[in-house]
C-alpha cells in the first residue's frame, strides 16, 4: 500500500511503474495524468443539509482519489437510494445512482465483467442493511472486487426521520412515537458474519483516519466493507458526539493498529475473557502482558467478530480501524479465470460449430 506521502509517485504508481500500487487495482490501467482533488469534483451543486457528515466524507474521498493513480474514467461509483446515495453526482467519475438497496448487485455485474475498473459502492444504513441487506452480505461473501462505503447515521434521513436498522432500541422517531422495538444490527458484526475479507470502521469527521481506511480498502483485492459513522444534523444530531468530542474521544476509541496493543485510552486494554470473549480491562489490574496485540490478518473471522462485539451503546469503548484484512480469491478474478481457462484449453468458441452440435441430419 502506498504511504500517505507517496515517495515520488504522487499518483500511487508502483515503484517500478508497472501498474497502480494498490493491490486492489492491479488490473486497472495507470493514469498518465496527475490528478488533483478538484479534478474529481463534478459541476453539480451539492445538495445535502448544512452540517451533514456527508460533506466531510465527500471531501476526504475527493482528496483521496488522486492517490489511486488510475484514470478518472476507470473509476465508477454506484449507489442506491438515500442521502448518501447522491454521492455519485458530486464526483466527476462514471457513476450510477441506482435503486434502493441494489447497488451491491449492480456493482457486482459491473466489476465481474470489467476487471479494469475501480468500483465503489456508496450506501447507507437503511439502503445497505435494510432493503439491500441481502445483496450486501452476498457481495461480501463472494468477495467481489468492490469497495463498499456504508455511511451509518442510524436514522432514515431522506424519508425524514424514521428509525433505521442501526437505530438503538427505544428510539423515539416519527414512526416510533413511544420508542422503536427493533434490536439494531452491528454492521461490522454482520459483515464479518458474511466472512467479508476486509472490514473497517471510521468516523466522518476524522479525515486523516478516514483517508487511511479508504487507502487500505483500495489496496485490498476483493470486497472491502467500510462503516463510516456519519452525523445527520437534522434527524439524529450528535449521535456519535462522544467519539468526536476532543475532550472524551480518546478515552472511548479503541484505535486498532495491526501489531500494536489494543488500547482504549492510556489505561484500558483488551484482554481475553473467561469464555474466550474479548473484554476491556484496566491494564494496571489485568497486567500489561495480557493486553492483546491486534492481528488484522487472522484467517478465522472469530477474533475480528469478537472485537466488533466490544461496541457499547453509550460508547464506553468503540473499535475503529481495520477489523479484518485477509487475502482470498475475488469473485471476478475467479470468474474471469474460468473464461480465460476455457478459451485457452478449448479455443475461442465458434458459433457455427455450436449451432450444429449434437445429433444433426441433412435434408437434400
Amino acid at each position, binding site marked *: 500500500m502506498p504511504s500517505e506521502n507517496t515517495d515520488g509517485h504522487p499518483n500511487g504508481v508502483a515503484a517500478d511503474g508497472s501498474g497502480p500500487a494498490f493491490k486492489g487495482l492491479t488490473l486497472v490501467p495507470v493514469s498518465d495524468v496527475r490528478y488533483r482533488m478538484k479534478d474529481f469534483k*463534478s459541476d*453539480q451543486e451539492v445538495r445535502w443539509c448544512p452540517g451533514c457528515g456527508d460533506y466531510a466524507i465527500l471531501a476526504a474521498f475527493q482528496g483521496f482519489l488522486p492517490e489511486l493513480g488510475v*484514470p*478518472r*474514467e*476507470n*473509476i*465508477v461509483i*454506484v449507489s442506491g437510494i438515500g442521502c448518501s446515495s447522491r454521492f*455519485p*453526482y458530486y*464526483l*466527476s*467519475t*462514471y*457513476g*450510477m*445512482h*441506482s*435503486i434502493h438497496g*441494489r447497488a*451491491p*448487485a*449492480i*456493482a*457486482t*455485474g*459491473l*466489476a*465481474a*465483467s*470489467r476487471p*479494469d*475498473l475501480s468500483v465503489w459502492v456508496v450506501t447507507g444504513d437503511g439502503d445497505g442493511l435494510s432493503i439491500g441487506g*441481502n*445483496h450486501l452480505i*452476498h457481495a461480501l461473501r463472494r468477495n467481489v472486487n468492490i469497495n463498499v462505503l456504508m455511511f451509518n447515521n442510524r436514522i432514515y434521513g431522506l424519508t425524514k426521520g424514521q428509525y433505521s436498522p442501526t437505530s438503538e432500541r427505544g428510539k423515539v422517531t416519527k414512526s416510533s412515537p413511544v420508542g422503536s422495538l427493533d434490536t439494531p444490527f452491528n454492521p461490522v458484526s454482520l459483515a464479518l458474519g458474511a466472512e467479508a475479507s476486509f472490514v473497517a470502521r471510521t468516523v466522518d469527521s476524522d479525515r486523516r483516519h478516514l483517508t487511511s481506511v479508504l487507502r487500505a480498502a483500495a489496496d485490498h483485492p476483493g470486497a472491502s466493507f467500510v462503516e463510516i459513522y456519519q452525523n445527520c444534523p437534522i434527524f439524529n444530531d450528535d449521535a456519535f458526539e462522544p467519539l468526536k468530542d476532543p475532550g472524551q474521544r480518546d478515552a472511548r476509541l479503541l484505535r486498532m493498529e495491526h501489531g500494536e496493543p489494543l488500547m482504549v485510552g492510556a489505561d484500558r486494554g483488551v484482554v481475553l475473557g473467561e469464555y474466550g470473549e474479548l473484554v476491556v480491562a484496566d491494564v494496571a489490574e489485568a497486567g500489561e502482558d495480557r493486553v492483546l496485540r491486534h492481528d488484522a490478518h487472522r484467517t478465522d473471522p472469530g477474533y475480528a467478530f469478537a472485537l466488533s462485539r466490544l461496541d457499547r451503546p453509550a460508547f464506553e469503548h468503540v473499535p475503529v480501524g481495520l477489523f479484518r484484512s485477509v487475502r482470498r480469491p475475488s469473485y471476478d478474478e475467479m*470468474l*474471469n479465470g*474460468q*473464461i480465460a*481457462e*476455457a*478459451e485457452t484449453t*478449448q479455443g*475461442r*468458441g465458434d*458459433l*457455427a460449430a*455450436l*449451432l*450444429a*452440435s*449434437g*445429433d*444433426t*441430419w*441433412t*435434408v*437434400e
Partner: protein
Amino acid sequence: MPKEVQRLDRVIIRFAGDSGDGMQLTGDRFTQETASFGNDLSTLPNFPAEIRAPAGTLPGVSSFQLHFADHDIMTPGDAPNVLVAMNPAALRANIDDVPKGAMVIVNTDEFTKRALAKVGYTANPLEDGSLAGYKVSAVPLTSMTVRALEDFGLSKKDSERAKNMFALGLLSWMYNRPTEGTLDFLRAKFAKKPDIMSANIAAFKAGWNFGETTEDFAVSYEVRPAALPSGTYRNITGNTALSYGLVAGAELTGLPLFLGSYPITPASDILHELSRHKRFGVRTFQAEDEIAGVGAALGASFGGALGVTTTSGPGMVLKAETVGLAVMTELPLIVVDVQRGGPSTGLPTKTEQADLLMALFGRNGESPVPVLAPRSPADCFDIAVEAARIATKYRTPVIVLSDGYLANGSEPWRIPDVSALPDLSVEFAAGPNGEDGAFLPYLRDPETLARPWAVPGTAGLEHRIGGIEKSDRTGDISYSPANHDLMVRTRQAKVDGISRDIDPLEVDDPTGDADVLVLGWGGTYGSIGAAVRRVRRVGGRVAHAHLRHLNPFPGNLEEVLRRYDRVLVPEINLGQLALLLRGRFLVDVISYTKVRGLPFKAEELAGVLQEVIDRAE
C-alpha cells in the same frame, strides 16, 4: 418370416410413468432417433413440480408426448395413438386423453393390488373390461428386463431401473427407428459405470428383440422422413434455442454476454446451458435472488456487456424495479420470462401466457418496454437475436415472453447459416457530442431516439446516470414539469418508433377471401396453425396471423384487423391481447381463452374457429 410393416403418415406416442421411471429421458431418446431419421416432429413433456412425488401416485406421474410425421406438423398432437403406461397411476392419469382404438401398452408387473389401490382402482382395469375398445398390449416390462439382465450381477433394483430402456427398445422396433444414436448416448452417459452401461444397452436390445419375436406384436410401422426444406437440421428445445440465440446475439453485436439469473422453473435450463459456453466469453452469475440477477445484468450493461436475465413469472414481479431503472437509464438489457401458470407460485411446470400485461405495464410510471414472443421452440433462437438487436440499437430493456411449452417442447430446427445472420455491431460513444467538448449522455440519435452508450473507461465521457428523472440532453437531475413531460413522451416515442424497424405482420390467407382472421401470439402458433389447417381441409376460409412483436405492434396491425369481419384471438390467459387490441384499435375482437396449463388442442380450436366462420357467413 418377417413381420408386416405398415406405413403411417403420422403417429403420436405418449410415454407415461413415475417421476423416477425416466420417462423424460425415454421420450427424449425416442425423439432424437426420430429426428435423425428425418421425420418432422413436435414434443410435449409434462411433469410434476415435485422432483420425486411418492412413487405410484397420480401426482407423481410424468409423461412425454411426441408427434412425428412424414410431413410438416405444428403441434405435439391432441390425442395419443399409443400410450405406454409404466404403472397403474400412469394409466389412470392419461387414459382419458387416449381415444378408443388407440394402442395401450402397459407394464403388467406394476399392476399389483397395492399399486392399483393407491390410485383408486377397485378392480384391475386390465381385467374388468374398462379398457375395451383399446388395443391393449400387456407386457411384463419389469420382469422381462430383470430376466434379460440376470447375468450382469446387478441388484434387482438396478436391473429394474433399466425397464425404461426395454420400453424404448420395444417402441424403437415398433416404429423402425434408428438405434445407433441411443446406443452412443448410453455409452457416453454411463462411460464411468461400464456395468450400468452394458445393462442399459442389453435392456434396450432385449426390448427390440422382444418386439421382433413375440407374437403379441404382429405389425411394425413405418413413418417416412418428411420433405422438409433442404438444409442441416437438429432437434432443439425452446430453452436451448433461446440460449443459442443469446450467444449469437452477443457474437453479432460484438459484446460479451453477461447473464445474471436465479434458478426458477421452467427457465433454469437457460442458465445451465449458458454456463457451459465460457469459451464464448459468456459470464454467468447465479445471483442471490431475482433482483440481484437483473441488477448484475444491468450493471454489466452499463459496463458495455450484453446484459441478460432469465426468469419466470414470480421472478418477473421482483425484477420490475430494475427494469424500470433500465428504462430510465436507457441501457440495453434482455429480460427473458419463460411464462408458467400463475398467479403466485401457480403451476411451476405448466404453460401459460398470462404475463403479457405485466410485461407491458407492470412497472411504476410510464415505462415503455419492447416485448417479443417466440412462436415455436426453434423461433426462440430468432427472437433472442431480435431482442439483442432492439436492446442494443435502441438502448432499452427488451422483454422476451417464452413459455413452459416452448421451453421444454422441441422440434427440428434448420440450422441457420451463421454468415447470413445480421450484423448487429454496436458502436459505443467515443468522444464528446456537445459544444466545447461537452458530453451529453441524453442527446439522442434523431432516427432511433437512442442515447449514446458511453462505457466506463472512455476518457472524457464521464457521466452519471440513475433512476431520477433526467434532463433532456445533459442527463442531469431534473424536476422540471416541462422536462418530465418531454422525457416521458420521448421514451414512449422511442419504443413506438421501433414499429418502423420490424417486419410487418404477415397474413396467411391462401384464398384471399376469408372473412375471419385468427390472430395469436407467442407459443400458440402451432395449435392455431394446426386448427386452421383442419378448418381449411373441410373447405373453411380463414386467415391466420401471428404476433411475435407485442410492443410495439407491427405497423400494419390495425390495417390487418380492419380487413376482416371477425377476428378471433385465442390465448392461454383470460384475454390479455384481446384487451390490448380493443383498447388500442377499438376493434371488437372475439376472445377465446383456456388456462389449463396446457397448449390448446388443434381439434378444439378448429371447432371454435368453425363456429366463428359459420356465424360470419
